[in-house]
């Protein structure tokens, strides 16, 4: 009861403050007096401020309830519409349809968002497998999010003018101009909420375990299906009206449970209330920080929610102690020389193609200044960076004993991006060349957090992966805030963020080679210890290996390599994930051959991506980060499916 009253009280107070905020400055007494008579103030309150408040309450509640449902369904404290990739999928669909079919979006924004939400959640569920094991679900959701957001980012880059207004919405905003949003979303959310409340009892039973539930005569499949549908619909409804807002769905149910609420009926009811409180609170806070300016509310929730997620990840990992998983890999490796020679031939072919074609005309004069100055170093940089990212992937996957780990999953990449953007916001005049410093700082912070939090647990793979996801979510949220703050100057930053081998010259080749020369030695040296680690911590320790120092070193070297790559070409994802996988299927799981073959494959992948990005819409460029995502994801999805 006390929880109810305090929640309602907070909601009322916050709502009142919320109504007093806006670009037209009216004092509270003016508002209170004149809102009752026809006129300007009444217009503003009725047609702008009240709908905004209403949509905030509805959206906050809907997201929180969806989060609560998803957490029970997946038995996963880290589940929510944003961590499962639902928001990113819905948002991508909205952006894509806005560019390609503007009239469709105008008529059916909800259907478009719903299609995206359904697609991404089906992908996540199908790939994560029936057990819904928390880390696997979270990682899969993360990868799906990564895929969709990299595609969204690239679209925004390519269609700069059409998507100008989308930055704000991209991180969620409550701005409303009339009651249309409320009258559309309101009934949907209320009906879905009632359906969810009806599901509370069955879900209480379900949480005892599926076997118990079915032995009690419950039709588990129907209940689960309905619960999934309700959660996805709730999330899609909110995305279509207010854009993707993260963290509410994650935090609100936890806060409710922490307040001592149990039983799904009460959890759902209270989640709705506290979700509203949190979202309205975040909106109030955003407008307090920058009066008269629109700070996206999604960014505010992320700033508060990021550290919270970190804490949650830490707690979760401590209770789930078994995180080891099979790395996969063929037991009948193809002979190394065979693999290497085939891959080398492929590389030579792709190099020859890339050197000879600029998208419009073929030419074999590789030494002509135009080609020699621009095309050749660009291709070489792409190759070397590809190698580096793949090496980092091998090390990080080896140390975390998780085939889905790479720099982006560890949060290193997204914190790097956030660091670079922060630099740009603080010093708007700073040349883009200096952004790598920001990136290095951001990546270092991410690594420090991982090292500090995982030290006691002996770098338990599960914990590291979860911390990584949390850091990564925080980093990309922060990046969003900075993108909004930096406004117009953002185009250059976005190019860099999405990863681009554009305009790389001989200096970049030298720099990349230097990095490789420094870091390859330690990487090779580490392969033996990593081999020992594959047998498990106990065996490795029995063999006289210091498990902890191996982990620290592999993490540090892996992060250093990928940060060096990020410093040169920006945040190219997927290479570090995909290349080691393919290699493992070719040469098995011993790390030295793995390292060599992965490196070659990574280089091959990025050179191909660069080539494709250069020629498809020549003379314009598609950032190679996007192309890699497009090439790499189908493979990754196929692989996830196979790794039951």
């Amino acid at each position, binding site marked *: 009861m006390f929880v109810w009253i305090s929640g309602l009280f907070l909601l009322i107070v916050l709502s009142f403050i919320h109504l007093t905020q806006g670009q037209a400055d009216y004092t509270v007494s003016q508002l209170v007096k004149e809102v009752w008579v026809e006129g300007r103030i009444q217009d*503003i309150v009725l047609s702008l401020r009240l709908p905004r408040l209403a949509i905030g309450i509805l959206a906050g509640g809907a997201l929180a309830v969806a989060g609560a449902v998803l957490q029970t369904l997946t038995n996963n404290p880290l589940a929510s519409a944003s961590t499962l990739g639902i928001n990113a999928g819905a948002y991508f669909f909205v952006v894509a349809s806005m560019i390609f079919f503007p009239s469709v979006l105008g008529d059916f924004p909800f259907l478009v968002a719903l299609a995206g939400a359904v697609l991404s959640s089906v992908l996540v569920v199908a790939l994560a497998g029936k057990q819904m094991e928390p880390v696997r679900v979270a990682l899969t959701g993360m990868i799906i999010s990564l895929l969709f957001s990299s595609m969204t980012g690239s679209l925004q880059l390519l269609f700069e003018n059409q998507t100008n207004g989308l930055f704000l919405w991209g991180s969620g905003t409550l701005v409303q101009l009339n009651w249309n949003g409320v009258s559309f979303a309101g009934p949907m959310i209320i009906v879905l909420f009632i359906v969810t409340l009806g599901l509370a009892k069955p879900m209480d039973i379900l949480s005892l375990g599926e076997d118990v539930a079915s032995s009690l005569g419950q039709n588990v499949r129907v209940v689960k299906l309905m619960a999934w549908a309700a959660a996805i619909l709730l999330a899609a409804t909110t995305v279509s009206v207010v854009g993707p807002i993260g963290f509410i769905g994650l935090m609100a149910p936890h806060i409710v449970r922490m307040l001592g609420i149990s039983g799904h009926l009460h959890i759902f009811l209270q989640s709705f209330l506290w979700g509203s409180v949190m979202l309205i609170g975040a909106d109030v806070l955003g407008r307090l920080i920058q009066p008269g300016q629109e700070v996206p509310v999604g960014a505010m929730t992320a700033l508060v929610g990021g550290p919270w997620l970190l804490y949650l990840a830490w707690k979760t990992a401590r209770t789930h102690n078994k995180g080891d998983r099979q790395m996969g890999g063929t037991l009948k490796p193809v002979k190394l020389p065979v693999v290497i020679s085939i891959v080398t031939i492929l590389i030579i072919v792709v190099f020859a193609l890339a050197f000879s074609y600029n998208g419009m005309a073929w030419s074999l004069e590789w030494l002509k200044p135009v080609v020699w100055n621009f095309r050749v170093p660009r291709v070489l940089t792409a190759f070397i960076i590809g190698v580096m990212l793949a090496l980092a992937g091998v090390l990080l996957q080896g140390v975390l004993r998780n085939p889905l780990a790479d720099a982006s999953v560890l949060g290193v990449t997204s914190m790097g991006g956030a660091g670079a953007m922060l630099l740009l916001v603080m010093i708007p005049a700073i040349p883009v060349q200096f952004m790598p410093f920001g990136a290095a700082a951001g990546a270092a912070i991410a690594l420090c957090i991982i090292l500090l939090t995982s030290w006691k647990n002996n770098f338990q793979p599960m914990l590291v992966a979860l911390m990584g996801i949390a850091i990564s979510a925080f980093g990309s949220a922060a990046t969003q805030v900075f993108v909004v703050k930096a406004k117009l100057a953002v185009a250059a930053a976005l190019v860099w963020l999405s990863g681009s081998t554009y*305009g790389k010259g001989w200096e970049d080749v030298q720099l990349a080679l230097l990095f490789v020369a420094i870091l390859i030695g330690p990487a090779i040296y580490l392969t033996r210890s990593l081999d020992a680690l594959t047998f498990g911590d106990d065996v490795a320790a029995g063999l006289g290996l210091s498990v902890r120092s191996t982990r620290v070193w592999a993490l540090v070297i892996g992060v250093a390599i990928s940060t060096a790559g990020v410093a040169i070409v920006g945040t190219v994802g997927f290479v570090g994930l995909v290349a080691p996988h393919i290699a493992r299927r070719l040469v098995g799981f011993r790390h030295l051959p793995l390292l060599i073959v992965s490196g070659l494959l990574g280089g091959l992948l990025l050179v191909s991506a660069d080539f494709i990005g250069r020629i498809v819409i020549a*003379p314009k460029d598609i950032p190679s980060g996007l192309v890699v995502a497009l090439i790499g994801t189908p493979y990754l999805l196929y692989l996830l499916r196979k790794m039951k």
Partner: protein
Amino acid sequence: MNKYVRTILLVALSAILLVGCSSKKTEDKGSVNEKAESSVTITGSNGEVTLDQPAKKVVVLEWTYAEDLLALGIQPAGMADIQEYHNWVNIDAELSDDVVDVGGRQEPNLEAIAALEPDLIIGVSFRHDAMLKDLEKIAPTVIFNPYPEDESIDLYQEMTTTFKEIAKAVDKTAEADKVLADLDAKYDEAKAEIDKADLKTKDIILTLAYSGPQAPEIRVFTPNSMASQILEKIGLKNIHVPDQFEVFGSSTFNVEGLTKYENANYLFTVQADDNVYEKQLKDNAVWKNLNFVKEDRLFDLGGDTWLYGGPLSAETLLNRIVDTMVNK
């Protein structure tokens, strides 16, 4: 633990040093060709750029500078984002069909630029600073910054300075002076017409609107912007005063923010396929009850009136203002 922290620091430090060393190599392009009588020196945000002789083939990477060339009667050899240019910029001088598209403004295609063998490349600071070195490998490159951080420079002043610099580069200084003088004459004409017209008020705000999916964003131009300076020259008064210095010359508002200015005339541009006034604001009570809406003091300048740009855009803006305000 200390040992590890130290190694991490070392790795980070060496990485930073490496990046630092490589980017510090500033190029020394000293040897100015003394013997060339006809050499010209122009000044951009990247310093002084000297050409042996006035440029004939120019590649422009930003619309404004293409427009500057057109005003001087010169077609650029190559230009970025030609298709979008036609959507947003409408000026009297036509861009010839044989101008080569060199890719996007953000990441222009270096090979395509090089293939044109230009004498000069013109870029804009907020997009092309990072690739200056690459561009200089192709041809002398000058970068301009249309949005100086210095509050005392108004953006109109910046436009004319840049225009004159570009004119110098292509040896058309006399033409540039004439264009600007003609423009000044037009301001006076326009001012006379505006004075004659029976306007209820000369207070105005000038906006450019575009939409997010559910909320329009409205850029309201500040007195510092080029467009606003033009308005002042023809006797109108921009009454928007921003709370803080806006580098890009506009503040972003939603409809609530417009209530402050409802007694002014409302000048606007909006893209036809993104008409937020028709689609999103039409039924909004606040919008409908703004004085300038109720009294029909809305002046549509057309979506292709570029509120940035050079002297020709300025002229288009001026003509459109006179057309809509005097003849309404």
